[in-house]
């Protein structure tokens, strides 16, 4: 790259703090014309913050941004758009009820009173022709598939003559064929001299499409590397890092009997897609079973099916050997299955109700809270709440105020108090430390370990590998609704191996990689016939076929 051509974007020493936490710490980042520069990092590494600074949503606390060699300061996203920055968010920010062409001009300055539809449509067609972004300009957005909506979002940026395109995890929502076409579009844009920022944590994709790769970890940049000459293993290691924030807890001393089992479970997601494709696993008492995976790979659907919140297509969940057959959430609760959902305010709690009411939310029908057939004894509830608040250290201005006033950490404590106080036999916990500060995080982890030692079967779903490696007695990796592997000895696995599994590399390839590198063979059998399911059962194949035959229109 010739040195005299200034980069399209040059972000220098960007620092952004949130309540004292440095989300971005003096990060340098540049994008040259005609290149794809990938931002790689785990959730919370600071990728989104950096890009939100670039597109004018956040004002940085330090550092500066140059666009084509000129110092710029963005006050609003509008300034960034005017400077040629186009952001394609994970959620596309389109108006579903409007057509593609209407979405295209929405928010543009100086629109004429009567929209020149023909001109707009012609321009859309020109652009989509050039970049292989096929879409019908007259179709309403709600009729489009997710892949098509993404194309509209990209078109929208190009329509605004963006020279720099930021694609925030664009492949997370796509099926493989759509990913290939997206890459074709990206290459075309690169060929036209655009600069593209690609955000992802799927290593195969990153290597396939990038020219350069910058790795962020905990708000700091680890380095920038040319994509040629860097390996997946190296990237995984740098992305995940070596420092362990939480010292590994002692593993369980003895494994108990199987309490909850999942057998060939197939579950549909919100959009009717097959989200869980034939998963089998067994949770034993006195152990923490970790589930690693990139968000949106079926974890949520799996957990909801495991607690009765979501029906399954086929397969079953067994509690103490008893088939539940899509029983109600209350049936699971009555058998001692507690659930700590990821979405605290949306699912786990009622923000407009007070602490007392939230504490009895999942037990008001049982003694001692129920008084007779019809009534709730709020005095008993208040006494119980008072004791829990004290025991779990929930800080609150009062028991009678709506809990929306509580902080995230206190909300989580409140939910733990409710779910754990009845000594459940199984605990399904999804991202229980998400968004919590260090103290609260440690608190939650300690409670989970305590429950395990007490004899509960704990199922811990997380995107935080450090957390999983520190807590899990067994660990499974999920990718696209399939279990990639289950190990009885998570601490023997390296984080980079796990990263590869999470990115969809098959276990065989991971093991071969270790062999080639000359790493020591894994201690103990990783592939334990009793606990390991490659997920290649008949149910899974059936499910996959069913999905292939479904409405989604693959396009090439």
């Amino acid at each position, binding site marked *: 790259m010739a040195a005299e051509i200034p980069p399209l974007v040059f972000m220098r020493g960007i620092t952004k703090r949130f309540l004292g936490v440095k989300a971005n710490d003096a990060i340098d980042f540049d994008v040259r014309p005609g290149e794809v520069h990938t931002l790689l990092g785990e959730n919370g590494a600071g990728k989104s913050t950096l890009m939100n600074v670039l597109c004018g949503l956040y004002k940085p606390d330090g550092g500066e941004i140059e666009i084509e060699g000129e110092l710029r300061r963005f006050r609003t996203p509008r300034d960034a758009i005017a400077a040629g920055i186009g952001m394609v968010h994970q959620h596309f920010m389109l108006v579903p009820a409007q057509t593609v062409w209407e979405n295209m001009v929405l928010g543009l300055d100086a629109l004429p009173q009567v929209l020149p539809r023909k001109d707009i449509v012609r321009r859309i067609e020109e652009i989509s022709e050039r970049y292989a972004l096929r879409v019908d300009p007259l179709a309403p957005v709600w009729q489009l598939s997710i892949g098509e909506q993404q194309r509209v979002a990209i078109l929208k940026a190009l329509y605004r003559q963006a020279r720099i395109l930021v694609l925030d995890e664009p492949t997370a929502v796509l099926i493989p064929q759509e990913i290939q076409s997206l890459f074709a579009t990206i290459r075309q844009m690169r060929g036209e001299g655009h600069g593209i920022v690609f955000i992802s944590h799927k290593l195969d994709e990153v290597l396939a499409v990038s020219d350069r790769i910058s790795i962020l970890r905990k708000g700091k940049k680890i380095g920038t590397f040319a994509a040629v000459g860097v390996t997946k293993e190296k990237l995984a290691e740098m992305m995940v890092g070596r420092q362990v924030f939480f010292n590994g807890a002692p593993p369980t001393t003895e494994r108990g009997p199987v309490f909850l089992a999942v057998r060939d479970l197939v579950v549909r997601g919100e959009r009717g897609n097959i989200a869980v494709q034939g998963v089998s696993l067994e949770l034993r008492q006195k152990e923490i079973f970790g589930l690693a995976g990139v968000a949106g790979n079926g974890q949520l659907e799996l957990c909801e099916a495991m607690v009765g919140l979501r029906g399954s297509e086929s397969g079953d969940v067994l509690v103490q050997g008893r088939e539940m057959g899509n029983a109600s959430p209350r049936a699971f609760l009555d058998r001692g299955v507690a659930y700590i959902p990821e979405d605290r305010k949306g699912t786990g709690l009622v923000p407009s109700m007070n602490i007392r009411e939230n504490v009895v*939310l999942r037990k008001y029908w049982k003694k001692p809270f129920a008084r007779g057939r019809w009534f709730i004894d709020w005095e008993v509830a208040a006494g119980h709440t008072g004791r829990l608040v004290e025991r779990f250290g929930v800080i609150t201005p009062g028991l009678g105020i709506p809990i*929306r006033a509580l902080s995230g950490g206190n909300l989580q404590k409140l939910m733990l108090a409710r779910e754990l106080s009845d000594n459940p036999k199984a605990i399904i916990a999804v991202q229980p430390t998400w968004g919590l500060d260090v103290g609260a995080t440690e608190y939650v982890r300690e409670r989970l370990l305590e429950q395990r030692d007490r004899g509960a079967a704990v199922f811990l779903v997380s995107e935080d590998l450090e957390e999983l490696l520190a807590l899990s007695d067994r660990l499974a990796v999920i990718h696209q609704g399939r279990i990639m592997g289950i190990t009885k000895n998570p601490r023997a696995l390296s984080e980079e191996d796990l990263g590869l599994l999470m990115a969809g590399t098959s276990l065989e390839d991971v093991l071969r990689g270790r062999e080639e590198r000359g790493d020591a063979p894994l201690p103990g059998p990783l592939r334990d016939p009793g606990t390991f399911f490659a997920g290649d059962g008949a149910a899974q194949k059936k499910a996959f076929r069913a999905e292939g035959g479904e409405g989604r229109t693959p396009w090439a």
Partner: protein
Amino acid sequence: MGLRVVTEKRVRVPVWLEVLVPVGAVMGALIAGAVLLALLGVSPLAAYAAMLRGSLGDWYGISETLVKAVPLTLAGLAVALSFRMQVWNIGAEGQLYMGALAAAAAVRFAFVDNSLVMFCLMAGAAALAGGTWGAFAGYLKARWNVNEIITTLMLNYIAIHAVDYFVYGPWKDPASLGFPMTASFPAAARLPQFFDSRVHLGIFFAVVFAVLFHIVFRWTKWGFEVRVIGANPKAAQYAGINFLRNAVLVMFVSGAVAGFSGMCEMAGLQGRLQHGFSPGYGYTAIIVAWLARLNPLALMGVAFLLGALLVGGDTLQVVMRLPLSSIQVLQGLILFAVLGAEYFLTYRVRFIRSVPDSPKEVD
């Protein structure tokens, strides 16, 4: 330098504000109404004074206000129940008509010459008919996500016209000189009236139901379930609360209470089923429920005040020769103001002096 308006979401709503905002809204609406009255060429002060005298000035006025407060309380409780669950039953009017229709059918086809038996028969028929009318919309909502606002509203027209069919057609009293009404009910099919006025037995049930609803919301499992669904449907599912069952049940009870109020109105006042016997109580009930912030006990007071407004409106019609619609405009203004004022309970509005950006940001 200038003033900048900043709005922020309130964390807590102080109690005084919860009272002040609706009272202020009503005052604002009355002031706006005064402008309208002035435009009609009437002195607003004289008009309001006449309304006050007519509705609360003497025992007759108060008794008439109570008479109107009864259906408003009952129908208001009906809609408040469904609103608590965030199911928008706009169909109290239709449920009220269906209740009256069924009760009239009971009088016609199952008459027993005993007031107690007859009352039970009429009440049962009215509750069942109104409840079914409501539960139908509730089932459509829960099962197929059909918008209940549309269905309940449409069902109103069907119910009102169904009543018209009978009072204009097969049930019309031949001796009614062409008026669309059934024959007068026998004494056993009428509710007793008290205090030498038109105040009838319905007032007792209005109070009983209000207290009952208060207990249900406050102390029962079912009331808690309804409130949880209304506040966060996903959390309700998480708590194992069955939405379908509750949507149907709530709409049934809501419709049953509205149907019961229709029966009381018919058997307590007119003593016969007639065309247009409810001047839109089912709709005014929505205003009542909102003004009372869905609180059953507060609802009685609000129903009394709106009853006074209706009686005052009648007085205005007679004394000032103003059209009935002017009173309806006033009612509309009040609802509009109260709903609009809701904003000030959710948000806090502050005026702050805007300061030019600090030099660091300008450079």
